[in-house]
């Protein structure tokens, strides 16, 4: 399916992209706050988006990411703070004039229009003639690989096809900014993967500054230039995907992105922490109390088979080249350790092992009482 996008699509994209080539659009969200009654949906959110960048807003339900997106789109107003596009404050500009393309979560295609008419709708609003409209809409449908479906109605299209039409529709108006509100959440896994690729490819080719909201970390990490992790209306960290993974700034980010083990330890003087029998330096924020949890990834732990070690193997989960070994440590602590599968095959449940921390700086967080 993606192969259809070469050929015509390449020329179409280049033609459209040229308009953008002169310089993408920068977007600045400055100190946005929004409260719904007693709940603070946004609590001072600030994000700077570079031209042509794809920024993903990632977080659990209720963290405020969709509210932020809708404020940028103009469907909600912030209580305080402003949105600047290319340096200009657009907070008072109505949604219809913001020149941003938006893709909604699902079922946003106009049911009474064919795919072609849907895509051409924004052009019609801009008073572009019928012939030109049809041509541009056709090119866009071609770009998303749906040229044969041009005369079909939304109810005749699958979910994935509908979202591709929605994407084409948003791009038809050559928007300065592209906004995506969890566009893949309602789709099957396989379709989701294909669309992910397609959206990213298109976005890069066109160089459109894009804000992408999702609760799926895999999606965010694989598509975005930078990912902003949000929680309770605040931005916890915004960084490139790999930085987010290896250098999480807070415990929330560390646990939200990827899998994280929590091992009880004691803070020592001089930025050190003791856990699992070793004392290692602390990285980043030191909690105020001495009872802490050390945060370490499954691939960050060392595992050896010994007699009378500090743990017992409980489970083994085959993940491909790596196997995740569940170990029960003394003191009612359970951890996951990743080992190469060949090695892990020799670890039978019930085997006695020793788990230890390598001598690298670790993140710590206040101990969680469960």
């Amino acid at each position: 399916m993606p192969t259809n996008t070469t050929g015509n699509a390449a020329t179409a994209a280049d033609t459209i992209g040229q308009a953008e080539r002169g310089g993408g659009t920068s977007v600045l969200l400055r100190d946005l706050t929004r409260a719904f009654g007693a709940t603070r949906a946004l609590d001072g959110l600030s994000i700077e988006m570079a031209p042509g960048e794809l920024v993903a807003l990632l977080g659990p339900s209720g963290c405020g990411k969709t509210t932020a997106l809708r404020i940028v789109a103009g469907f909600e107003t912030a209580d305080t703070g402003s949105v600047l596009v290319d340096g200009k404050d657009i907070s008072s500009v109505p949604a219809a004039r913001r020149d941003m393309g938006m893709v909604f979560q699902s079922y946003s295609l106009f049911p009474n229009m064919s795919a072609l008419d849907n895509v051409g709708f924004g052009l019609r609003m801009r008073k572009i003639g019928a012939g030109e409209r049809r041509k541009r809409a056709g090119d866009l449908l071609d770009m998303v690989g749906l040229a044969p479906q041009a005369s079909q109605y939304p109810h005749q299209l699958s979910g994935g096809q509908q979202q591709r039409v929605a994407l084409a529709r948003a791009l038809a108006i050559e928007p300065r900014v592209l906004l995506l509100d969890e566009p893949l959440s309602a789709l099957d896994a396989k379709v989701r993967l294909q669309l992910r690729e397609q959206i990213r490819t298109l976005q890069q080719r066109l160089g459109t500054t894009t804000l992408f909201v999702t609760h799926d970390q895999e999606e965010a990490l694989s598509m975005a230039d930078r990912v902003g992790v949000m929680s309770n209306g605040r931005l916890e960290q915004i960084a490139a995907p790999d930085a987010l993974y290896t250098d999480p700034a807070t415990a929330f980010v560390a646990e939200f992105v990827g899998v994280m083990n929590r091992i009880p330890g004691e803070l020592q003087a001089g930025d050190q922490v003791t856990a699992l029998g070793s004392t290692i330096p602390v990285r980043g924020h030191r909690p105020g109390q001495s009872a802490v949890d050390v945060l370490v990834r499954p691939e960050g732990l060392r595992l050896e088979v010994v007699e009378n070690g500090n743990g017992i193997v409980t489970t083994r989960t085959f993940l491909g080249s790596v196997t995740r070994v569940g170990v029960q440590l003394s003191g009612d602590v359970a951890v996951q350790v990743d080992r190469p599968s060949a090695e892990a095959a020799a670890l039978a449940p019930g085997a006695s092992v020793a788990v230890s921390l390598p001598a690298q700086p670790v993140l710590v967080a206040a101990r969680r009482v469960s």
Partner: protein
Amino acid sequence: MAALAERASEGIAPPRRRMTGPLGVSIWRWVVLVVTAVYFLLPLWAALRFAGIGAFGAVVGEAGFTSSLALSVRLAVITTLLTIALILPTAVYVHLRLPKLRRLFEGITILPIVIPPVVLIVGVLAIAPGVLKGTSLLLALVYVVLAMPFAYRAIDAGLRALDLKTIVEASNSLGAGWRSTLWRVILPNLRTALLSATVLTVALVLGEFTIASLDLYQTFPVWIYVNSQTSGQVSVAASLLALFVTWVFLLAITVLGSWQSRKTGGGEVTLFTVARTETRGD
């Protein structure tokens, strides 16, 4: 199913920055609602002035007031029970076993709305057996036909909001029989829809005049008409009273139903659908 998920996440249309008045509410909406309120309330006010407060007291004392009111209420109760007893199992059955016929059914349930009650009663009186003709039961039986479209739509809407097939299968797999499932699983989840159906049926019966008068029964509306020959003021007062009582009754049921359904996480009770409450996205 995706359709269900979509329905669950729909809310009221988002607030829009339109021309707003001092209260931040759209001006045109105010105008429309005020004009509407005037049109509907003005005649009530005029009637009130015409009848005079004293007439209300006189109404209760008039001959036939209690008996006709009692008849209307009795008919409302019987009709409601009959309607629900007939429609509920049918609707459930259609949803479960004959889903393809659902469209057809919706068409059938439109029939009574568009058959003039006048014509219906002509036909009924032509074929009804003598023993039935003498009783008010006949009236109730005919009312069931009149109420059927509204009751069916209300219950159908309630069933559509449930994933009926799934919960019945779940109940099934846990060992419940047909009767248990209907009583313990389906019915409690249809409380608001049943409430809607009840409300609609009661409103219909309490306001129905044509068939009752042509069948020569003195229900409350008929009594008002008959009495109007003697005292205009009293009958106007009676009309207002009937209107007011019905309205309060319906409002109470609707509010009660909404309150109850909100406890169990359902939506507000409207007379035709059970609308999902707004879910605040993140």
